[in-house]
C-alpha cells in the first residue's frame, strides 16, 4: 500500500477525456516519475491530487485519507506540498519573509489571528527559516526582494519553502523546465541531497529524460490520459510501447 493511491480516476473536459481510468500507487520514500508526451494528462492528474480539480469518478487516497473535496490548503496541511512549473513565490516579499510564511503555516495551521505579535520576536520561526536558507545555500540572498532573484534561485526558493513544511509527499511539476543544463544538474543534485537527508516521497512530472533517469525509482508513462506502463527506469528505457507513445507508430 503506497502513501498515495489513485484508483480509477476519470476526468473529462467537455468532449476531451483528459484522464481515463488512472491507477497509480506511489510507495513511501521513493521518487516516482510521471512522464508522457504533451497532452497526456500529467498536469491534470497533478491538479486532481492537490485539490485544484475534482475528478469525475475514482478515488485519491493520501496516507489512508481521501483528498477529494478538500481545498488546496487543507490538502497541504495533510502533508502534500507542490512546486509549480513556473515558480510561484511571494514576489513582493523578501526571501526571508517567503521562508517565514510556510514556517507559520506549519506551526499555526491554516489560520491564526496573530495580529499583535511581532514576526521578529518569533525566534523559533526565524531560526527555522534561516536554517532552511542555509541548507539550500541562499543565506546571502536573505534580504533580497524575491522578485529580483534569478529563475533558478526562484525555483530553489520555492522548493525550500515546500521543504520547510516537511511534507510527506512533494509534488514537482517540471522542476527543470526552461533551465540551462548547469541549473538542471544543480536541481538534480539538490533533489538527491534532499532525498538523502530526510524521509520524503517525491512525485515528479518531467519532460527531461536526463532528470527522470537520474532520480526516479519508478516511472509511470502516461499517454492520452491512461497509464501505459509502470516500471523501474531500466525497463522503461527499452520499452517499445513507450517509444511508440513518444515518437508515434511510424518510428
Amino acid at each position, binding site marked *: 500500500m503506497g502513501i498515495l493511491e489513485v484508483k480509477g480516476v476519470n476526468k473529462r473536459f467537455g468532449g476531451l477525456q483528459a484522464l481515463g481510468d488512472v491507477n497509480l500507487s506511489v510507495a513511501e520514500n521513493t521518487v516516482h516519475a510521471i512522464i508522457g508526451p504533451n497532452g497526456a494528462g500529467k498536469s491534470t492528474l497533478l491538479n486532481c491530487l492537490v485539490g485544484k480539480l475534482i475528478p469525475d469518478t475514482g478515488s485519491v487516497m493520501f496516507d489512508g485519507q481521501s483528498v477529494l473535496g478538500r481545498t488546496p490548503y487543507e490538502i497541504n496541511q495533510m502533508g502534500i506540498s507542490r512546486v509549480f512549473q513556473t515558480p510561484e513565490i511571494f514576489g513582493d*516579499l523578501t526571501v526571508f519573509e517567503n521562508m517565514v510564511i510556510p514556517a507559520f503555516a506549519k506551526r499555526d495551521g491554516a489560520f491564526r489571528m*496573530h495580529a499583535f505579535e511581532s514576526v521578529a520576536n518569533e525566534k523559533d520561526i526565524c531560526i527555522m527559516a534561516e536554517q532552511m536558507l542555509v541548507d539550500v545555500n541562499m543565506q546571502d540572498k536573505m534580504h533580497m526582494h524575491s522578485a529580483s532573484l534569478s529563475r533558478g534561485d526562484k525555483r530553489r526558493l520555492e522548493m525550500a519553502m515546500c521543504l520547510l513544511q516537511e511534507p510527506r509527499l512533494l509534488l514537482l511539476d517540471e522542476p527543470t523546465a526552461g533551465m540551462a543544463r548547469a541549473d538542471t544538474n544543480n536541481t538534480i543534485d539538490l533533489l538527491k541531497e534532499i532525498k538523502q537527508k530526510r524521509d520524503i516521497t517525491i512525485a515528479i512530472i518531467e519532460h527531461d529524460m536526463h532528470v527522470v533517469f537520474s532520480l526516479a525509482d519508478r516511472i509511470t508513462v502516461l499517454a492520452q490520459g491512461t497509464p501505459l506502463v509502470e516500471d523501474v527506469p531500466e525497463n522503461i528505457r527499452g520499452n517499445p510501447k513507450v517509444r511508440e507513445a513518444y515518437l508515434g507508430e511510424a518510428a
Partner: protein
Amino acid sequence: MLGLSKKDLTFLLIVAVLTLCAPFLLNPFPTDSAMAQFNAGYPDLMQRFVIFGIFAIGFNILFGLTGYLSFGHAAFLGVGSYSAVWMFKLLSMNVLPAILLSMIIAGLFSVLIGFVSLRRSGIYFSILTLAFAQMSFNLAYSVLTPITNGETGLQLTLDDPRVLGQSATPQGGIPVTSLFGIEMRATHELAVGGWTFQFNAGYYLCAIVMILAFYVALRIFRSPFGLMLRAVKSNQNRLNYTGLNPKPYTLAAFVISGVYAGLAGGLLASMDPLAGAERMQWTASGEVVLMTILGGAGTMIGPVLGAGFIKYFENIFSKINDTVLHQWFAFMPDGMEDFFVFLLHPFVGKGWHLTLGILFMLVVTFLPGGLVEGGQRIARLLRRERTDSNDRPDPEHHPRETPHVAE
C-alpha cells in the same frame, strides 16, 4: 518597548509629537498677516485631519496590505456616525459609549458586507463593495428614515430621552458632547506675539485616539498576520498551496478596517453630533481611496499624509476666491492683475478639485509610491550628496533592497 523595534518606536514617537504639537505647527503665520488664511491650526480642521487620518489608516490595512480595493468604506463611517448620534440621543452625552458603539456596529456591518464581497476578488470585489455602500446610502436617505432621519440627517433635539443626563440644559439648550465633563468644544486660546494658538479638547481626544490607532496599525503591519496579508496581495495561489486559508485573513483585515472607519465616524459625530446620509455616498468612499493612494498605499504614514493633504485643500484652497486673488495681485498693473486672476481662478475657490486632480495625476504618474516615495527620493538624494559619489553602487546591477514598510 511597547512590542516595537527601536526604529518603529522612534517613528511612533515622532508621529505622536507632531500630532500633539499640531496647533503650533499648523499655525505658522501670524493671525493678522496676509498669509494667515493658509493657517490650518483651527480646531474644526485639525479634528478633520486626524479623524480622516484614522479612516485612511484603517483603509490602508485592507488596501495597502491585501490589495483588495474597497469602494464602499464610507458606509462604515456613516454607520459609525449614526450609531454615535443614537447613543447621544438615548444614553448620555459622554463620547466614550458612543465611540464604542460606533466601532461595534461598524464592525458587525463589515462582517456582513465583507463576507459577501470577499467571495470575489479584483474589480468584482470593488464593485460589490460599491454596490453595498450605495445601497446603504439610499437606505439611509429614504427607506430607513425612522432611524436616519432621511435627508435632513440625524440630529439631537430638545426632547431626546437621554437615560443618563438631561434632555436639555437648564438654559433650555441642547447639551454638548463631553468626555467625563470635559466639553469637546472647549478651546483654550494662547496668544504669543502675533500668533494665536488654539488648544481644543475635542482635537486632543481625536489626536490621542489617532496615535493609538496608528500604534495598533503599526503592530499589525509588523505581525505575522500582517505578513500573511501582504502574502495575499503578492500571490494568493502560493498562499493556498502553502496550507494557509486566505479567506479568514482577508475578512479579518476587512473587519479591522471597517472598525477603524466606524471609529472615525463615531469621532466625527462626537465632535459635531449630527449624521447625514451624504457621509456614506460613493464620493466619500472614493475620497479615502484618493487619500491612501496620494499618501502612499501600503506605507504606515502615507494615508495620514494623504488625508491631511486632501482635507487641507478642501478647506483652505476652497476659501481663496476672486477677492483674495485680486488682493494678491494688487501690486500689478490693472490688465496684468486681471489676467493673473483669470488664470488662477479655475484652480482655487470652487475649483479646488481641479488642483487636487492635477496633483493626484502628477503623483500617480511620477511617484507611484505616493508622497512617501517623494520624501524617500529627496532623502536619498541628500544622503548621496553627503556620502560623495566615489563608490556609488551601479544602480542598474545592484539587487534592490526591499523598502521597509514603515517608511
